[in-house]
């Protein structure tokens, strides 16, 4: 086979391979990620170990892009499954609702909007800087969650209520458009966090 023909064949194969990878990635992205119920961890005899395992399971939600994108380190949110910097450049502002001249509500409305593919919720805003989760390990997030100086003064019960019932948190499971929802359901997350608390709220290693 001449060199030009070999080149054509290999280019063609690369294209097919890339198309297949994209297809499979699309298939993978479309599959919702399940969360195990607290009962699945009953077999772990050691209470602390069971508690840590429950938090690791809840961590599938906490460290999903749907949550991390609005818990950034620094002033700029990220977006997308790949968590690239939010386009356009927007900042936290004084209270997490954006700079005074470019608030989140300039673009983000009370509900997801199909024609523009812009996600929305009535309470759209960033978590405070003290609740930055990006670039933190799950163990560090766990310690941060329990620290009342950094979690908005919440008790563990209030943390559980926030995870289980807060409506903006709940948006993570109904993100609209082509955005993958957070794993499981908000109810399942609430149950895992409750079970974690009931087993002593132990944190994974930092």
């Amino acid at each position: 086979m001449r060199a030009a023909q070999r080149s054509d064949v290999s280019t063609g194969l690369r294209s097919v391979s890339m198309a297949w990878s994209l297809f499979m990635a699309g298939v993978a992205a479309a599959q919702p990620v399940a969360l195990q119920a607290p009962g699945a961890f009953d077999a772990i005899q050691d209470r602390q170990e069971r508690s840590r395992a429950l938090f690791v399971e809840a961590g599938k939600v906490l460290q999903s892009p749907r949550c991390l994108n609005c818990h950034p380190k620094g002033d700029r949110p990220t977006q997308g499954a790949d968590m690239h910097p939010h386009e356009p450049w927007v900042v936290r502002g004084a209270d997490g609702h954006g700079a005074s001249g470019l608030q989140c509500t300039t673009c983000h409305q009370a509900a997801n909007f199909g024609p523009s593919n812009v996600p929305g919720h009535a309470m759209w805003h960033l978590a405070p800087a003290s609740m930055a989760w990006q670039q933190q390990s799950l163990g560090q997030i766990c310690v941060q969650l329990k620290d009342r100086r950094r979690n908005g003064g919440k008790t563990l019960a209030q943390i559980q209520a926030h995870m289980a019932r807060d409506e903006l948190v709940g948006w993570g499971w109904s993100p609209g458009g082509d955005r993958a929802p957070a794993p499981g359901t908000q109810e399942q997350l609430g149950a895992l966090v409750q079970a974690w608390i009931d087993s002593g709220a132990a944190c994974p290693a930092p």
Partner: protein
Amino acid sequence: MPITLNVNGAAREVDADPDTPLLWVVREDLGLTGTKYGCGIAQCGACTVHLDGAPLRSCSAPVSAAAGRKLTTIEGLSSRAAKAVQKAWVELDVVQCGYCQSGQIMQATALLERNARPSDRDIDQAMAGNICRCATYQRIRAAIHAASKQLSA
């Protein structure tokens, strides 16, 4: 379905599906074509209007969001800040092709109505969502500063 809007101070009724992007209603039902379609995905700012005085990307809001609220388009700007912005834009010859400029003016006006003396950083942060392919950014910045001086005079 019929929806009544308050557009530039006047009541206007349109017959539109409540989920229709506000931009389409502004341009096609109301005939106010000063507001532009640039991208349709809230990435360019050409569609910026004011809703109750706050900037809004009209491509990303349903017309139902404007019902019962005060909608202002580029055709209807009349505040002191708006006049200062328009004067500065003319004096500094900001415009090249003009396509982005109604959005730029709407956004700049909203900034100055909130912060009459914006710093360069404030301008960066407020205007970051308004793109200009002719790259008139330096003139936009200078015009905002000039308008700010006018407002403080």
